[in-house]
């Protein structure tokens, strides 16, 4: 990279930092959707803070709360779309749009869908070479709640496509099937 001017090098570094910050946000979705505490602990700083609609507290308290909450659901998928990042040295201030799909059990044991739209407003901090979430505010914009109409759970459909699972049994954690 010897041919880069100082200004060009700074631009290049900003691209690399931005990508690292973006991946922190995406790895959070992986941790949550696979209900993987170890991955989640690698996404936040140990002295981090999380504010969700019905939780506001230290990351240390957030972990057991969110794991228990997720274990009360059948499946989730957190899609992150628009990510706008303001970089300021070792600090990144970000807004990330999310759509979260949840499969839940209703009071009568029936499957229900809950879809929530919102935005993560994050302070992501670099310590050493690593970026992690220092403070997350999950701002809630929209929700939908209705009985599940999942056609893919019909027995004849189940063979059509492999199901994602929670925990390390999910195919994302193994590359054996990709050879």
């Amino acid at each position, binding site marked *: 990279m010897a041919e*880069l001017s100082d200004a*060009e090098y700074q*631009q*290049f570094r900003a*691209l690399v930092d*931005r990508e690292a910050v973006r991946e922190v946000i995406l790895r959070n979705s992986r941790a949550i959707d696979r209900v993987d505490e170890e991955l989640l602990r690698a996404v936040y700083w140990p002295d981090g*803070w999380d*504010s*969700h*609609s019905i939780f506001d507290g230290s990351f240390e308290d957030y972990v057991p709360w969110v794991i228990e909450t997720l274990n009360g659901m059948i499946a989730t998928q957190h*899609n992150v*779309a*628009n*990510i*706008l990042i*303001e970089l*300021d040295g070792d600090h990144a*201030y970000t*807004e990330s*749009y999310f*759509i979260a799909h949840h499969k839940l059990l209703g009071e009568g044991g029936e499957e229900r869908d*809950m879809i*929530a*739209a*919102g*935005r993560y*407003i994050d*302070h992501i901090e670099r310590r050493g070479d690593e970026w992690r979430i*220092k*403070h997350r*505010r*999950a*701002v*809630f*914009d*929209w*929700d*939908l*709640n*209705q009985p599940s109409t999942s056609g893919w759970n019909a027995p004849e459909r189940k063979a059509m496509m492999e199901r994602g699972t929670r925990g390390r049994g999910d195919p994302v954690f193994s590359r054996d099937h990709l050879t």
Partner: protein
Amino acid sequence: MGKIDDLLDKQEIMELSYRYSRACDRLDAELMTAVYWPDGTDDHGAFKGTAPDYVDWVMGFVGNWVSTHHDNTNILIDLDGDVAFGEVHWTGYYRYEIEGVLHDHLATGRYLDRYERRGDEWRIKHRTCLSDWSKIEPANAAMHEAGLANPLRGQRGKADHLYNLRNIAILEDAAE
């Protein structure tokens, strides 16, 4: 710089769509105006005209709705010097009243854009908005109803947490 320049250009162009969504969803006319060149144009079907007139029109159009949320996903950009062309997939989550009943309107479509660089800055010169799919149904919004007083509820306008993006340190100090 070659390929790195291309990355930087694409990054900047991609952020135009994100800022456009932010502006629409927060009803921020100033922010939306800054996404287009002043001599830019927009074709939203129901509206065809100049960018400044579009901003006025769209703020009025969605201003009476309860909320909007625009996800931008697949973004493909072709660079051609100081001009670029883009296709941007969008999914819109809209909530508004129909005859006094809250409804959800979900829609997908694409923006077809022409971008121009003038000086160091990229902006939209023309945006055409296409609709590909939609559905409308009565809202079943348990969290919406329950969360009206929630401090983490999204807002339109400057009360939203977005406008406190960098004041997080103050919140952190208060929490410690």
